[in-house]
């Protein structure tokens, strides 16, 4: 592995710029963006490569031997796990099977297990929402999460799921539409800047 290639920099790039390239890539492939995403494993592999490449470059530059871990990069990413809610209702055993099926990516099984449950409580809607979310059925996921939150307003797991959905990818996720509307703002700023320059005579 060529660590410079992984980060898209050259051996001549300054430490600060390497750090910047690293941060940019880490933001892109951060596991938080890929929670419940069917491609999470690929992003995780990529994240590992980026961390390793960064460590290699930084170790090499500071003259340390390879393998000595650098503070602030590797290790902190990659494990997010699924925090199991403290559910203890009549369907507890089915629900834990459903969670397992979702974690293994077997959405068909998870869905058919859920369809067989007759009492549909908040947890049921939450899990159904998660199945929908994994499938990319975001409207249905939103409906199911909302239902779960209404039935059990104090459950933090349900609320987080609903917030994540509405935030579009959670922390660090893309907001494609926000960018589209931001352009207008940028244009206005640029125009304003021009006007200022005209008035103040080449300030900057």
């Amino acid at each position: 592995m060529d660590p410079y290639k992984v980060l898209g920099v050259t051996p001549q790039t300054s430490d600060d710029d390497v750090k910047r390239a690293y941060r940019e890539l880490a933001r892109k492939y951060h596991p938080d963006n890929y929670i419940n995403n069917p491609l999470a494993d690929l992003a995780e592999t990529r994240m590992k490569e980026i961390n390793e490449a960064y460590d290699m470059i930084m170790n090499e530059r500071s003259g340390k031997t390879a393998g000595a871990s650098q503070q602030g990069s590797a290790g902190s990413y990659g494990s997010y796990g699924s925090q199991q809610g403290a559910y203890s209702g009549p369907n507890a055993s089915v629900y834990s099977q459903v969670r397992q099926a979702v974690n293994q990516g077997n959405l068909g099984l998870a869905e058919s297990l859920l369809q067989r449950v007759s009492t549909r409580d908040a947890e049921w809607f939450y899990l159904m929402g998660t199945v929908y979310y994994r499938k990319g059925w975001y409207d249905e996921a939103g409906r199911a999460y909302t239902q779960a939150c209404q039935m059990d307003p104090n459950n933090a797991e349900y609320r987080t799921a609903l917030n994540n959905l509405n935030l579009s990818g959670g922390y660090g996720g893309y907001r494609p539409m926000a960018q589209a509307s931001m352009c207008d703002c940028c244009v206005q700023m640029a125009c304003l800047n021009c006007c200022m320059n005209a008035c103040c005579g080449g300030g900057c």
Partner: protein
Amino acid sequence: MFGFIRPVKPELRVKEADRFQQVYCGLCHAIRARYGRFYTFFLSYDMTFYALVQGCDQTETEPPCRKRCDAHPLFKRACAAPDEATERAADLSVLLSYHKLRDTVQDDRGLKRLAAKLLCAIGKRGYQKARERLPEADLAMVAALDDLQVLERENCDSMDRAADASARLTAAVVPQTGDDRERVLYQLFYHVGRWVYLLDACADVSEDMADGNYNPVVRRYGLTTPSIDEISEPLERTLERSLADVCMCFDLLDAARDADLIRNIIFLGMPLVTRQVLDGTYQTNGGWGKHGSL
């Protein structure tokens, strides 16, 4: 498909705009060489996007060749040299065009149905040829379309369910290679398909309500007036989710060729069209130029 997928030209570099036109023309020539003139009339920006994404793992860009065509008979135009990706895109665009016609025959009435029936008959041979080349893609498309027709007939009120069938139809373009790239491409085109289907439904709300046709957005929100102003916020959110997934897939794809051009389409073009459709300012072809000239 519908032509929603295209770059934002003012943000393109000149060489990228040229390249887009060359791939567009290259695809047209590939279709003509393989299937004759007829199918070139169904050429779209959407399939140009497909050709770009499908070929983005190549590291080399062959120098363009110059060719004359029906639309530009006087002067030769630069065309992307035919490669595997454009040829696959040509086969797929024949399959998709034919299925679109077949769908019109099923759904529409009157003159439109008659015209589609005629075109189907003319295009049948080309379709059979394309089906021989890509049998598994055709099977997946037929299955997805059948599902979609059932859902439309039963007036399905889940827009995700209807969009899922359409998205699977779009995702059928991805070659079955069994590797990670297939997974990424499948997810990418699934969400492109979901986005196109739902956005098209948003754009057609008033038309479909007037004609009494099935429209997933109308059914989902139980609309009584042909206006999406009140629901544009949740619609935007769900469309944006699919776009975010497309962006993330693209990041995982490691595009070696045409990365900036594809990036323009995904990160700028698609969000822009979404906004335009939702606030009602969308115009076919963006009001720019004419067919094929961006």
